[in-house]
């Protein structure tokens, strides 16, 4: 038997160590907001977590070491393996999954607490019961909602908005039902029904599914961030139920900082959080959507593209998710190198939400050793677009759609875009004319000065680099 029970649960020593732990969390998050200190901040927070876990393991009342070892072992093995194996392109769904299991843990803890309360056969005090119910509902919503977000980003289910008629009404009814069931349990706190509690878990899970399903893939980072804040709050609620100060502070910290972060992310996309949640892309009958009739477009091959690029003075490359999927960053860098040898000025226009997470493109291009100075932000590059000879759109779609500016009825109206349509010529490298994340047609493809090069981004870039060498 491991000699545990060094600290009295809720005693001064344990609390002091918890204070150390959450101070490290706050410091870690603070550092995480600056590029130079972010990595260190993450490490500081991880140390805080280690302190919190070790402290808890040494509390009195901790037992069943075999099960604890099993849980820790499985969790660590899965977490480490998944984190090492995951591709940079799959980071957002990985975060969604981690968030989901966190929410799931909260819901399970709540369930265990209520079973424990029932088995004691005494009245469960409301200041414990109410947080347990809150944790159960929010944890379950977060678990299922995150899983749907994961499935959408992993293309396990369609990324376009899936809506059921009368969705908002169904969601509202579910929510009312959940609240009513919670009130029922709280009123009957002398002998709460476990069956009703399980029903609450299931209904909350269904609600999580229904809320996230109608949201389009492009909005997923905002949704994941919001669910992240929710899980934080539910962890805080679990802290109230278990009288654990570390859980209360850490959970609340994540809840509030996550809320601010969610709002900042939505602002970067020129959308409000409410808009994301209740008016998913394509929710309104879109003029450009639905009917994708044959529209005339110009299609070219790698050789033509190479010629256009090689004889240009300035080229702007606009990367998007397609580049990430095809892992084309090195091939694209090769094209840029060839062009620079010929005296062409090359820069990269980075849309704040290009790819599936903010900063996605910066990460990929940094990996291919693209000089930092060549990465230009949207606001910076847009005024230069009319003076740009050729804009090359590689695997990007919605972030270049002029409908966002020109068509007030478009579902993406008002979203800031990279104004490639202002460039003298546009080459779009894409596998097909199919619509992007938002599920709407891109008018850019049918502009007279746009040439489409239908190919995999990596292959196309490699071909173009080869053709430029041959010129």
């Amino acid at each position: 038997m491991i000699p545990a029970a060094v600290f009295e649960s809720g005693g001064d020593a344990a609390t002091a160590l918890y204070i150390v732990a959450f101070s490290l969390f706050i410091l870690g998050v603070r550092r995480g907001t600056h590029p130079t200190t972010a990595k260190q901040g993450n490490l500081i927070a991880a140390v805080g977590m280690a302190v919190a876990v070790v402290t808890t393991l040494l509390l009195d009342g901790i037992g069943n070491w075999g099960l604890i070892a099993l849980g820790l072992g499985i969790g660590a093995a899965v977490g480490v393996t998944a984190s090492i194996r995951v591709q940079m392109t799959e980071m957002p769904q990985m975060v969604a999954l981690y968030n989901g299991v966190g929410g799931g843990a909260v819901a399970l803890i709540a369930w265990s607490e209520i079973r424990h309360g029932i088995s004691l056969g005494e009245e469960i005090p409301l200041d414990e019961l109410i947080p347990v119910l809150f944790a159960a509902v929010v944890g379950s919503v977060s678990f299922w909602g995150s899983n749907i977000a994961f499935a959408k980003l992993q293309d396990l289910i369609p990324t376009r908005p899936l809506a059921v008629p009368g969705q908002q009404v169904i969601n509202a009814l579910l929510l009312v039902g959940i609240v009513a069931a919670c009130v029922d349990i709280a009123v009957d706190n002398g002998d709460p029904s476990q069956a009703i509690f399980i029903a609450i878990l299931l209904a909350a899970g269904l609600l999580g599914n229904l809320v996230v399903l109608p949201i389009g893939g492009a909005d997923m980072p905002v949704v994941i961030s919001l669910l992240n804040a929710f899980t934080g709050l539910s962890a805080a609620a679990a802290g109230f139920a278990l009288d654990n100060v570390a859980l209360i502070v850490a959970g609340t910290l994540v809840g509030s900082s996550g809320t601010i972060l969610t709002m900042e992310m939505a602002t970067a996309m020129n959308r409000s959080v409410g808009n994301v949640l209740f008016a998913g892309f394509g929710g309104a009958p879109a003029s450009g959507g639905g009917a994708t009739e044959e529209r005339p477009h110009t299609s070219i091959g790698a050789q033509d593209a190479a010629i256009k690029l090689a004889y240009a003075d300035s080229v702007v490359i606009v990367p998007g998710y397609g580049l990430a999927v095809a892992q084309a960053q090195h091939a694209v860098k090769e094209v840029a190198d060839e062009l620079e040898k010929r005296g062409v000025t090359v820069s990269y226009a980075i849309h704040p939400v290009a790819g599936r997470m903010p900063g996605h493109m910066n990460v990929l291009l940094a990996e291919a050793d693209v000089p930092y100075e060549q990465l230009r932000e949207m606001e910076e590059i847009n005024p230069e677009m009319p003076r740009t000879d050729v804009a090359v759109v590689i695997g990007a779609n919605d972030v270049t759609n002029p409908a966002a500016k020109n068509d007030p009825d478009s579902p993406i109206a008002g979203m800031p875009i990279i104004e490639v349509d202002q460039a003298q010529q546009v080459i779009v490298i894409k596998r097909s004319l199919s619509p992007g994340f938002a599920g709407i047609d891109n008018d850019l493809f049918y502009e007279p000065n746009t040439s489409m090069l239908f190919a995999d981004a990596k292959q196309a870039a490699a071909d173009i680099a080869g053709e430029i060498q041959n010129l």
Partner: protein
Amino acid sequence: MSLMTEITIFVLAAFVGFEVISKVPTTLHTPLMSQTNAIHGIVMLGGLIVVGNANDALEYVIGTIAIAFGTINVVGGFMVTDRMLGMFSRKPKPKPKAEGDGKGGS
């Protein structure tokens, strides 16, 4: 701990969270989300506590899964964040014209 003490802590922590996230550059949104995500993995402490109180087979199972889930959240969360930030730190530091930027010079 009394309920009111807990609520006091909750409210103060909420304000700390709001204040700590000031203006975050877009490129750090995802890593920061991932880091805070790892921090709420602290629920694994709850798993450790409930598994000690468990008194039937189902509770053992629930508690063990809760620990495993929480551990995945913590371990995976911090590691993935570290990987993301590692990609950033590899970019070349020298930014010749950025000398005066920090001080607001032109």
